[in-house]
């Protein structure tokens, strides 16, 4: 198991290195001058030259890459050109919204999907299964911004249970923060839950058709006992994969929902940085997201091994 984890860790480090190289090459080395791109076509030559010096574009490519990576390792992500504040501070502020929101949404979607998927699989072809499958169709089909607006209309405007948007910050208490994130989390969780339910259901149905389920039944387990004791753990592998992908998506893919609810999250940050051509911010946020995806995959890999002894053995 330790060997397996070490091996994954090495592959994690290599992936990060390759990703940082690719991002650096695409943003900084690719044809075109980052400084004149950031300032637009009407910029004065001396302004461009000043920015070039600030960005360190006069140094060699290797030195620039080294100082970029070295900076990130020490927590220095550079300074935003647009806002003139350290990028690390901007990201940290946004992460305090995006990370809890992603975890909140993921928890909700898992809490919905597991019972719904298991319920449907246990009643394959029955009314319950049809109901769940139909609901997941709907969940995948409804655009989440529309669903978000409906949530605002019902729970914020009519019932006044939640505020319609904005984020008051965590200083006003965990509960207030959570409350502000609840409607966005539900809006984000719905389509994810629909997808995850389907994966859970089909994965479990595959497993329930396996020979060892029949063996379990022949031992005297009821079909429900066989499902819980022998089906569920075996069905988890594809489900874990999807959960890993969803987390990565939720972290940065919430742009629309963040817009609908006026949340200062990572998605909005990257959107603004791109429109303002603030390459320093773009580069750092993209690297951060890549880091998140790779770390989540690492955790998912460890979870696989915890679930399946064959992976531990294969090392």
């Amino acid at each position, binding site marked *: 198991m330790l060997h397996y984890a070490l*091996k994954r860790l090495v592959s994690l480090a290599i992936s990060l290195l390759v990703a940082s190289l690719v991002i650096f090459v695409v943003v900084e080395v690719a044809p075109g001058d980052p400084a004149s791109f950031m300032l637009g076509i009407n910029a004065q030559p001396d302004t461009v030259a000043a920015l070039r010096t600030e960005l360190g574009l006069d140094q060699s490519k290797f030195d620039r890459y080294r100082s970029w990576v070295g900076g990130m390792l020490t927590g220095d992500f550079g300074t935003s050109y647009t806002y003139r504040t350290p990028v690390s501070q901007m990201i940290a502020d946004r992460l305090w919204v995006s990370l809890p929101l992603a975890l909140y949404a993921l928890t909700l979607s898992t809490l919905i999907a597991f019972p719904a998927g298991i319920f449907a699989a246990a009643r394959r072809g029955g009314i319950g299964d049809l109901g769940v499958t139909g609901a997941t169709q709907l969940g995948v089909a409804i655009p989440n911004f529309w669903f978000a607006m409906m949530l605002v209309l019902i729970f914020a405007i009519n019932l006044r249970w939640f505020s319609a948007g904005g984020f008051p910050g965590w200083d006003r208490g965990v509960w207030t923060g959570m409350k502000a994130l609840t409607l966005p989390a539900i809006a984000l969780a719905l389509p994810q839950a629909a997808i995850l339910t389907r994966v859970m259901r089909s994965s479990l149905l595959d497993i329930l058709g396996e020979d*060892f389920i029949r063996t*379990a039944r*022949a*031992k*005297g387990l009821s079909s429900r006992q066989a499902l819980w004791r*022998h089906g569920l753990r*075996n069905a988890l592998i594809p489900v874990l994969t999807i959960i890993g992908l969803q987390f990565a998506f939720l972290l940065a893919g919430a742009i629309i929902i963040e817009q609908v609810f006026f949340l200062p999250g990572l998605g909005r940050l990257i959107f603004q940085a791109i429109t303002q051509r603030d390459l320093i911010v773009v580069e750092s946020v993209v690297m951060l997201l890549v880091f998140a995806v790779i770390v989540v995959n690492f955790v998912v890999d460890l979870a696989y091994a915890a679930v399946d002894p064959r992976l531990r053995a294969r090392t």
Partner: protein
Amino acid sequence: MSLLDIRNLSLSIHGKPILKDISVSIRQGEITALTGESGSGKSMTAFATIGLLPRGSVTTGEILFDGSNLLTRSESDLCDLRGRDISMVFQEPMTALNPVQTIGAQVMETILIHGAMTSSDAKARTRDVLDRVGLPPDRFPLTRYPHELSGGQRQRVVIAMAIALRPRLLIADEPTTALDVTTQAQILDLLKGLVSEQNMALMMITHDLAVVSDMADTLNVMRAGEIVEHGATFDVLRDMRHPYTRQLFDASRHQAKLSTAKAETPLLSVENVSRDYALPRTSLFGSRPMFRAVNRVSFDIKRGERVGLVGESGCGKSTLTRAILGLEPIQEGQITLDGDPVWQDGHPNLAVRRKMQVVFQDPYGSFNPRHRVSRLITEPFHLLTDPPKGADKDAAIADALTAVGLNPADADKHIHAFSGGQRQRIAIARALIIRPDLIVFDEAVSALDVRVRAQILDLMADLSRDYGLTYLFISHDLSVVRSITDRVLVMRAGEIVEDRPTPAVFEAPEHPYTRTLIDAAPQLPAFPETQDAARPAF
């Protein structure tokens, strides 16, 4: 009184009749066999008995266990009964165990689910039964996972689960079909021992009459959902009152009439061939350890010769086959066909490849279901530099189909229109169509029912006579190899341990391993009055 008494059982699934008026009875301590070809309903009879029929099943009749009708018992009653009074062992040991639970936990579950004892007693009992089925504690602690065991060992675990609570009835559905002959003999012995020790009743389901004749006290021959003949095993096999029983019996020991081969010029030459596989790394930066699957193997096949290659699973016969076909590179030695190497400069040699064709085991998985037969069997044409076109192509298709006993009009059909045996004929037509010098039959009749198998073997003998075929016939089944080859290679652990003419190998095996294989294979009894009795059953 019988322990199990199935009376007039009929079963239909989604309206389709599966069993018709089945009656079987088994006494305590008795072994009863259900035999017949695939689709005859033997497994469904077992599933009906243990109450695990698929959805949409409708049953009539009675299944009396200890006098009470199982068909009218509630599901929770049946759950109590399963595993405690009636247990079942299945065909496929590789998939019958949960891969993420230890073998100890899985055997113990049978005991705990019935609340039969405390968990420490259950653990002791688990250890006992694992010992009993031949899995001693030093090599097989309870913490082992199924993937760490071989097929035969897994089947022992499945048997341990089934007998942990000493059931009165054990149902074994083809328990040794997926196993090698030597393992099969051990498992059959184990089952026989358990029956006599625990005075258990055993319902044994098998397609193999040789296994039946060795094991069962009584025999039920099934065909298309009906029992056509039943009685004491010896009487049924001696009298064979029903023609179907005789057909099965004759097909089981069918000897194809092989014409004498005129084999002089060498065709295939395998010299000192070794094949290594890289295993997963054991340390992070170390080199990968190697596993030698084939170790310095040498043999020749002459033109017109029919050679068998036998060995148990994992002996390297499939690896050797792939190397001969030029599908994989070899690490040592040389394989040549007609003097040309099959693998040259890091690539398979196409000039040689078009002289070889292969027929695989699975008649269902080896065809693209979207293509018509004409396209399927002309696939080897792409190996030719100048493939026949138009009328020539149609003639080639018609010839190939006629040669394997099909109708040229079948060329326009899709593969789903054909039975398993017909599909194997099509596979042979596909191999024949470019008139290869060498055909490799890789377990080509192993998946077929005995009567179909006999027909395919006859077809091979006919083709061998008409076309002067040279083939390499790979099989784990010695009886089949005996009837269809001139010479046998016996392979064990990557090496060829015996290479002699077929009759010599079977009548006087030289290598002890060959003898073990021949002794382990179950044999049909030879009754003097039956025809062909002069030939031994193999």
